[in-house]
């Protein structure tokens, strides 16, 4: 391509392909966090309006268990993504920077997701 020979400038691998995905990769964990946050918040709101929390202990426990499983799964996905990037560490320059950023953000996002466990186990539903 016409700009392949620019001295001193890193070549951008696969120009035009998946640039947005590569740009947003460091924020992967927070996209999962956002999805999980909305899911548990909306699920609880809708379940309360449908009266699920008051249809016996089994339904109530089932709802909590489902939210807990979703929370664990979300955290696991984020941690797996971070671990995958962690294995690619050691690269220099821009790539290495983006990997460090991704791993750090994934760790924080996983923490923020797991933090939602506290309300699930400590606060009554629909009160």
């Amino acid at each position, binding site marked *: 391509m016409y700009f392949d020979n620019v001295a001193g400038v*890193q070549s951008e691998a696969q120009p035009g392909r998946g640039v947005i995905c590569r740009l947003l990769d460091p924020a992967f964990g927070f996209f999962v966090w956002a999805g999980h946050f909305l899911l548990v918040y909306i699920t609880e709101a809708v379940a309360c309006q449908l009266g699920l929390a008051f249809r016996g202990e089994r339904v109530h426990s089932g709802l909590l268990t489902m939210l807990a499983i979703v929370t664990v799964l979300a955290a696991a996905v984020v941690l797996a993504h971070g671990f995958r990037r962690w294995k690619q560490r050691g690269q220099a320059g821009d790539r290495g920077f983006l990997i460090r950023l991704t791993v750090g*953000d994934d760790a*924080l996002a996983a923490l923020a997701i797991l933090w939602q466990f506290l309300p699930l186990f400590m606060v009554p539903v629909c009160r």
Partner: protein
Amino acid sequence: MGDGPPRWGWFTEANNTWIGRLYIATGFAFFLGAGLLAVLMRIQLARPNNTFLAEATYNQFFTMHGTVMMFLFAVPIGEAFAMTLLPSMTGTRDMPFPWLSSFGFWCYAIGGVLVFSSLSFGIAPDGGWFMYPPLTGPTYSPGVNTDVWVLGLGFVEIATLAAAIEFIVGLLKTRAPGMTLANMPIFAWYMLVTAGMIMIGMPAVIAADLLLELERAFGWPFFDATRGGDPLLWQHLFWIFGHPEVYIIFLPAAGIVSMALPTFACTRLVGYSWVVMGAVSVGFLSFGLWVHHMFTTGLPLMSLSFFSAASIAISIPMGVQVFAWLATLWDGKPVLRTPMLFVLGFLSIFTIGGLTGVMVASVPFDWQVHDSHFVVAHLHYVLIGGMVFPIFAALYYWTPMVTKRLMSERLGRWAFGLMFIGFNGAFLPMHVTGLLGMPRRVYTYDASLGVNGLNMSSTIFTFILGAGVLVVLVDFIRHLRSGPRVGDNPWNAPSLEWLSADADYGFRSLPLITSRYPLWEQPNVLQEAREGGGYLPDAPTLERESLLTSPITGQPEQILRLPGPGWTPFVSAAMTAIFFTGLTLRLAVISVTSGAVALMFLMSWMWRLDRAYPKGLADAGRGLGLPLYLNDNRSVGWWAMVVLIITDASLTLSIAFAYLFLWTAKPAIWPPDGSQMPGIIEPFVLLGLTAGAYLLFEGAERFNRRDRRFSVGICLAGTAILASVAIAIGSAWPGSLGINPTRHSYGAAVWTTPRVDCRSRCNWRSDGYLVRGAARSADARLVAMRNVAGLSALVALHSGRHGAGACACRRVSICISITSPACKARRSQGEA
């Protein structure tokens, strides 16, 4: 200072460096005005049962103080500094959409002045800066006060979104050659995150405004509890934007601190990657905090706890940043100049505000202090500490870059001392008065409350704080004439903007950047920038140009042609402002006239976009040839449209949220009696018509690529017919089911949701395809008239000027552009 533009150039000049300076001056003017209101309010509160201000006047003052400070100063001033600094800081001549920035600025300035002047006519907003219904609904606020607030916010929304688009696309696509993301100045990272937050968050408050005006103007009861609405819907939508807004305000200030600290500590920023990580984390987590403004509204405990957990979680990335700053101080040898003093003031005051933030993030504590002066103290510690002090640091730090003169060190120290002491003396006691039960937004209090002495003390120290601000003002005016002249880099700063000191634009010749601290670590960078040794030593097209680079590695891709001076952005913005103001004040003739003029200028803007571009590569310097036009996903137009699509999606989701919220809030009466549920036939008919229109669109796109104009025309005509039938049936359908938008919130939500969604889809697909298809089949410039109403059209069309227009958005399938035979030439050239 550079010579600046000639006489009328104040209105016509369109480059971000210049517009940013106007933004800064205007922002500080609003700051002084809102500060004066604060002083008057403190005089009223100095003594119990005081009569200095009438109750109604006080209501207007605290509403305008909050509104102006938040929307006309705090948000725009960060963008203003960014607009001034980023072109130089990122080593480019200018960012890609200077006309859009100009349009945004003039909307902000004119709209802001109109709103502020409402105080003079007694029609200023009076419902508090967050304007909760039902207080602001048609029943309790029948005048135009609330409409004035919505009007003002509308202008800020236009300006803020325009700036966000400019920053996102500019920072990703017009950095200096070789400036990778890892080498990007930390301030640029903060602004990138801030702009992303605006892109996602701002549509929520746009949706809230829209619903409030629908209720006020047409009686659609979104917030009227007697007709199935819920006032809490406003609070949700407002704070979905309003809480991230706190960080939209804070992050640019944090960027300023992160730039100034290494300079005055004489060392690199410790933990650059960690700070970037913290900024990105804050950008996301801030969207999970909005309900912590609503802890007392009776939401379920678990919901509150989710938000409480997120509120506490955000303290981790915030703490990371604070510790990185402290470590930088520890690592270096700090020099206590005036900007550094303001930075240290920021660190101490903001940390206290953060700690009280952790306190109010706890639900039980918040129940005790909600709506008290404790919260007033907390938010001022966060905002004045977290934003005003860094902004004053920025003023002292970067003024020599613009004026080539230093502000006084002695007056600066006086200013800092007065502001620091005045601020703490004014607001620290409010923690106590709040805990003792003094409510906020109440124009007086009784002597028996036991807060007389503390209130008098707060008022006295407010004057000291104001004196500090006045010292800065005097110092600034004085330094323009008698400040000592300095060289290009008086602080020995490491960042690139100091190389372009005194210029009215970014760089003449764009240097190759290989370091995060180029002035400290790249000895040849000065020569490259000054003596034409970098890229673009000349102007191969003899127009304003810059270099388009790749978003991750900063690889040169295109010579970007930029627009020059022109009246269009100013006149369009002014007429748009007058148009909406006329609507608000019900001045029909003025409104219609100015609307027509605005339309004419916007059309003129579009008409001139589509010029023929020379074929072949142009000399970009250093032996590099680059095209003048790109039409794929490397073009700035493509990126701007991606940003707009996300903004549109966010708006649509906000409206969908409104529907869901109203349903969950009132499930027993949703839908209300008398509303029939749809049968099976109509939905399938509508689905079939929509699917048919969509398929024909796709067909038009494919024929368009093969240059088969007749087939394109047939497909588009079919699309138009099917879409029109679908719209006609869809519009009549809710009415036939007894769904009335004024009778119940259900009807209002049903009528609103598909319309907003339709508008978004129109922006995404319909307009783009129709206009593009028409462009290819005939010279149908008039078709583009449909787009003049929206900011999205402006951006898209503006981007078209830079070669991204008609053919740019193939993959995303959007493109709003106009026409011309040159399109085909461009297309073939670009694809070659």
